[in-house]
């Protein structure tokens, strides 16, 4: 097991946002977490990255308890998040955003930057532009590339398709699938349950802070409950 979450509770003041969540991600898997607006998906990723404290429970990464680690220590462990809303360093150039992605690794990231440009050629054209001036889809590419610059052992993606035109949504999901094929372990959070479960090995359903279902992606897509609640079928 690469990631093992057991009995995690997270609160915002009196709001109980995560209720004893158990969840596992194995090496090389693409695991999807789906749930409605406000279910607690972002909160779970924030708790995994350490920018939000868990009130109880444990998070183990490669068998090591990381529950009390600071965010930058978790990045050093290889847990990288592409946050909701991209959160780029808007006034900095695309290339500086990528460079900062490799911040924890130190050294010269130039080879990796070239690799990113090979995967996302449009970013090479825009390399000197402030990242904040790019289109939504391009910004999402920068956000993903920035996280990849760190050589993640586990990539956390928070609604990468949010706010994108349908054509681009497909492109982003293809890119995610491509990453999985290259061996990256991915934990994908989505409101777009159909697209996420379709490419996932396994999936979890989160409802008001609780995991209510988990199964293979295929089985969840076929389950009546998911069909009714998330696919509108």
């Amino acid at each position, binding site marked *: 097991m690469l990631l093992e979450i057991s009995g995690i509770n997270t609160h915002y003041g009196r709001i109980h946002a995560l209720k004893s969540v158990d969840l596992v991600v194995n090496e090389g898997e693409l695991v999807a977490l789906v749930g409605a607006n406000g279910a607690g998906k972002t909160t779970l990723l924030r708790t995994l*990255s350490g*920018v939000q404290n868990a009130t109880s429970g444990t998070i183990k990464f490669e068998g090591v308890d990381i529950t009390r680690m*600071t*965010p*930058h220590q978790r*990045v*050093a462990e290889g847990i*990288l*998040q592409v*946050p909701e809303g991209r*959160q*780029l*360093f*808007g*006034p*900095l150039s695309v290339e*500086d955003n990528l*460079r*900062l*992605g490799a*911040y*924890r690794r130190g050294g010269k990231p130039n080879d990796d930057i070239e690799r990113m440009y090979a995967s996302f050629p449009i970013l090479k054209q825009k390399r000197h532009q*402030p990242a*904040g001036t790019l289109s939504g889809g391009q910004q999402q590419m920068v956000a993903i590339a*920035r*996280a990849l610059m*760190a050589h993640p052992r586990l990539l956390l993606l928070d609604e990468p398709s949010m706010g994108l035109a349908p054509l681009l949504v497909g492109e982003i999901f293809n890119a995610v699938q491509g990453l999985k094929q290259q061996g990256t372990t991915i934990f994908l959070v989505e409101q777009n349950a159909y697209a996420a479960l379709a490419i996932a090995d396994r999936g979890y359903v989160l409802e008001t802070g609780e995991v209510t279902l988990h199964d293979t992606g295929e089985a969840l897509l076929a389950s009546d409950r998911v069909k009714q609640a998330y696919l509108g079928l």
Partner: protein
Amino acid sequence: MKPAKFLAPSPQPLSREGRGALSGDAITMGADFLQFLVSGITVGAIYALAGLGFAIIYNASTVINFAQGEFIMIGGMSASTLTAAGVPLPLAILAGCAVAMLGGVLLAKFAIEKARNASVVTLIIITIGASIFLRGLAEVVWGKEFHQLASFSGDTPILLLGAAILPQSLWVVGVALVLILVIGFFFTRTLAGKAMLATSYNRLAAQLVGVNVRKVVLAAFALSAALGAVGGAVVTPITFSSSEMGIMLGLKGFTAAVLGGLGNGLGAVVGGLIVGIAEALSAGYLSSAYKDAVAFVIILLVLVFMPNGLFGKRGTERV
């Protein structure tokens, strides 16, 4: 010892009589103007460093650090008292820097960090409290009187087009320029500098790429303290130092930072020069009694007519 009028750095212009008179000699007027300009740029350079200190700390932590003037004071007082005790000047300046940096880091660690979720107003009150504390401490250690420091390269003025330039003015402007260039290089060319900038643009994203944002805040306080302390040391031969010198310098630095657009480093530098020159001109052509009022008039005008300053405020969030 009766000190020179605080922050009236240059010698009086060559001629007071010609000025303002309709029949005034144009050459004298030009020399007067040049003289005022030189003194304005000299103090302005110190305001610029102070303003840059405000900007760096504001960017890293959104704190407006009203103890910035006290960092300058610590630099000035350390340099003058240590050299008086026989310590070589470079060592005295370094020691002043070290003390100021320690003060800055302690302030960040024990006051600012502890009050992480406090409101902006609370944080400002904390820094004002820290400035009063540092001033009091300085008074206990160094006393209330003014202290001298010998000019670095003598006191023979250099004459330029009828204006007399003190060699120390060149030191002040030169040192400020070098520091500003070094800071500029740090923020635009080094990964550590970009990480600090990144933290100011988007704190969450900085955390998510692995920047230790607590360390960034400490580094910002240390950096600003060092800038202030060096500025205080180089300006002391002109202005003398006292435990109170930080009050006005801090406020002028704040004016510079607001004028340039809070959090805009380059803006703070330009703002500092503008405040310095405006002050020197009004002291020269009106009366030195109005000198300190100039900064406050500027701050009021900026707040009312262009709250984002000349070059736009840098927010803490992206774009």
